[in-house]
């Protein structure tokens, strides 16, 4: 187990290095440079500025400076906002995105497991039909439509009751988080429901469930001890990629609900060509996702001993 963990961690570090290099090379191929515009008025000033920021050095040397800074955890200073470090931006806005993302993942996982198990139990009956219809809807409707519809419904509900049930946009309290998290987790929940359903149906027909029934165990106990615990395993394997999808999918929800998260900041930075913020955010997000996938994989090994043996 320790050897496996170590191996995964080393792989993860190499992957992060790959992400950092790819980001560096990609950003170096962006047409124009940060000094074009009004900052460098003539060639002499331009040369001075280039020397100051190290932009006159050969690409390899710039690359090593960049990697060196990354190793020290320094993402640089924003190009468009005065005196603002990328580290500060991440420190300030990432917790917001992370809170929203975690809430959405919990929501999607719980909902997916619950609905999936329910549809499998009521296979080909009314609850199954209704839930599977909603699932297909959840997979086919883009998140921005859910976000818009959710907001619209909330506005109408608030108007109907004459009080503010939940805030329509913004961030701060738990009540601000509920609807965005629900919208953000919707697509993943639909996907997990489908997965849970097919996994549960497979388990229902397995030998050990039949044996348990033959022994005369109560149905509730078979459900919780035999069926649910085994059917949940495939859901856990896809949880890593699901977290990735949810965190990056947060952009739209953050835009629509005016949440001051890192995703919204990233989109803003891209629109303003804020190079250091783009690079810093990409590397940070990439590292976070790689780390999350490793954690989920290790968790899977801990939950399912069969994986550890391989």
């Amino acid at each position, binding site marked *: 187990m320790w050897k496996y963990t170590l191996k995964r961690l080393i*792989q993860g570090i*190499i*992957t992060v290095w*790959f*992400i950092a290099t*790819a*980001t560096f090379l*990609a*950003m170096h*191929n*962006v*047409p*124009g440079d940060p000094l074009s515009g009004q900052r460098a008025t003539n060639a002499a000033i331009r040369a001075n500025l280039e020397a100051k920021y190290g932009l006159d050095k050969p690409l390899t040397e710039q690359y090593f400076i960049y990697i060196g800074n990354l190793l020290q955890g320094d993402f640089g200073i924003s190009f468009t906002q005065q005196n603002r470090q990328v580290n500060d931006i991440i420190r300030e806005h990432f917790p917001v995105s992370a809170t929203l993302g975690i809430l959405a993942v919990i929501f999607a996982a719980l909902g997916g497991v619950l609905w999936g198990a329910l549809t499998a139990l009521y296979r080909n009956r009314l609850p199954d039909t209704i839930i599977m219809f909603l699932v*297909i*809807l959840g*997979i*086919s*409707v*883009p*998140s*921005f*439509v859910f976000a*818009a519809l959710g907001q*619209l419904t909330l*506005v109408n509900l608030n108007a109907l009751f004459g009080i503010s049930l939940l805030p329509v946009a913004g961030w701060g309290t738990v009540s601000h988080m509920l609807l965005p998290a629900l919208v953000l987790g919707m697509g993943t929940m639909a996907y997990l429901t489908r997965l849970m*359903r*097919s996994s549960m*149906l*497979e388990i229902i027909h397995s030998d050990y469930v039949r044996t348990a029934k033959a022994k005369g165990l109560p149905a509730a106990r078979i459900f919780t001890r035999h069926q649910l615990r085994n059917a949940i395993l495939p859901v856990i394997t896809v949880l890593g990629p699901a977290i*990735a999808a949810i965190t*990056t*999918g947060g*952009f*739209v929800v953050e*835009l*629509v609900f005016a949440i001051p998260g890192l995703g919204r900041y*990233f*989109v803003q930075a*891209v*629109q303003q*060509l804020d190079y250091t913020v*783009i690079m810093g*955010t*990409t590397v940070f*997000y*990439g590292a976070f*996702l*790689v780390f999350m*996938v490793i954690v989920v994989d290790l968790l899977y090994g801990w939950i399912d001993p069969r994986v550890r043996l391989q």
Partner: protein
Amino acid sequence: MTTPVSHSQILNSADFAPITQRADVHAISRPSQSYWQDAWARLKKNRRAIVSLWLIVGLLAFALLGPWLWQIDPARQDIDQISQAPGADRSATIVAPYAPWDGTVAAEFAGGSGLRLAMAANSQAVRLHWDAVPGAAGFRLYRNIFAADDEMAFGLPIADFPTPAAGYYEDRLDLRPDTYYYTLAVQAADGTLTANYQTLAVPVNRVITLDEVRERELAPAEAALDIGDEVHLALHPLGTDYLGRDMLARLMAGAQVSLFIGIIAPFLYVLLGVAYGATAGFVGGRVDQLLMRFADFVVALPFLLFMILFQVVFGIGPGESGIVPMLIALVVLAWPATARLVRGQILQIRQEAYISASRLLGARSSYLVWRHMIPNTMGVILVTLTFAVPSAIFTEAFLSFIGMGVAPPTASWGSMSNEGLARMLTHPHELIFPSLFISITVLAFNLLGDGLRDALDARMRSFE
């Protein structure tokens, strides 16, 4: 208890006589079916998949044949009809060209008191006049699209009058065929509003001058038109957007962009993935290790972040639509999933006995790949392709929605949804139509993918 039956009672020697041999014992009663015929027969039984298939055919026809049937330029602005819902009233009455007004009241509007109309209100001008209010220091005139209720929401202040005398005002500011609520609030001497106000609801009719009719070709050139006649403005079956562009034409243009990216990009990256995965799986050994490790790295890249990053790297210049950069970015980032899948399949097929047999008979590697391996993975590849389409359409819509996709004059369903979102409360059709098209397309491809998976591959058959 029954007595046991002896064998001699039920069997006799005649039962052991050989039966006569029939000639047609080995005949095949039905024509044999190939893999694809069998798959097609299975697919045909799946009603949802067939409906989806027809939907997809319909969407393709909408994108390709639609612009040919509905020849309206999607970029053309109809300034008379901005943000029109589908089925809105298009009639307009022809009136004389605008002439300045000196405050005279038309004969049929004479009489009355308070704030009232001086002439028939139309989209050319709303002419109001009012009586003097004793004790007032002045008036302020407001316009709103809702009735001023208890909150005294008067709307937009359009004019101030510093005299308490009777006055008149002509409003020509961006008038649409709608009902406007004009409020005349009385000001106290210090300029503050008093609680004394009068509100007038003015239904505005759409009018058009004869010159405008001729200029916009709303009536046949030879038609004899006179003031007071009614003409119909250009038809927009699905309404118009916030710049007065025809929604139907834009949806068709958007369908071309969205379906182009949604179908061509998966086709290209599945092709790349198949080539890559087949090479890795077939060659095996160190090359396989190296190739798949690289694929692992590409998978680890945060997909949407890098899509956005690539959009920046390619830099969309003026006049470019941004479709090609998105296509390239999708292909560069999305191939590894297919490569992994195909490699796994090839590795599995390599173990099969028929490959060994073929090799034993002297088949070359290229023959093995083309004759055995590719056809045997075709089902998996086709299913992957079908599921890749909705995800590519989603990616395009998502990127265009946050403004990182196609550049503005180009229509795509995602960018149209983005534009519609801002006017969701007042003109919901601008958001509903494009998002409906995205949802239907994604739904159809997903259901078709499910059907294909069930029809093509018994191992992947889902528990339904």
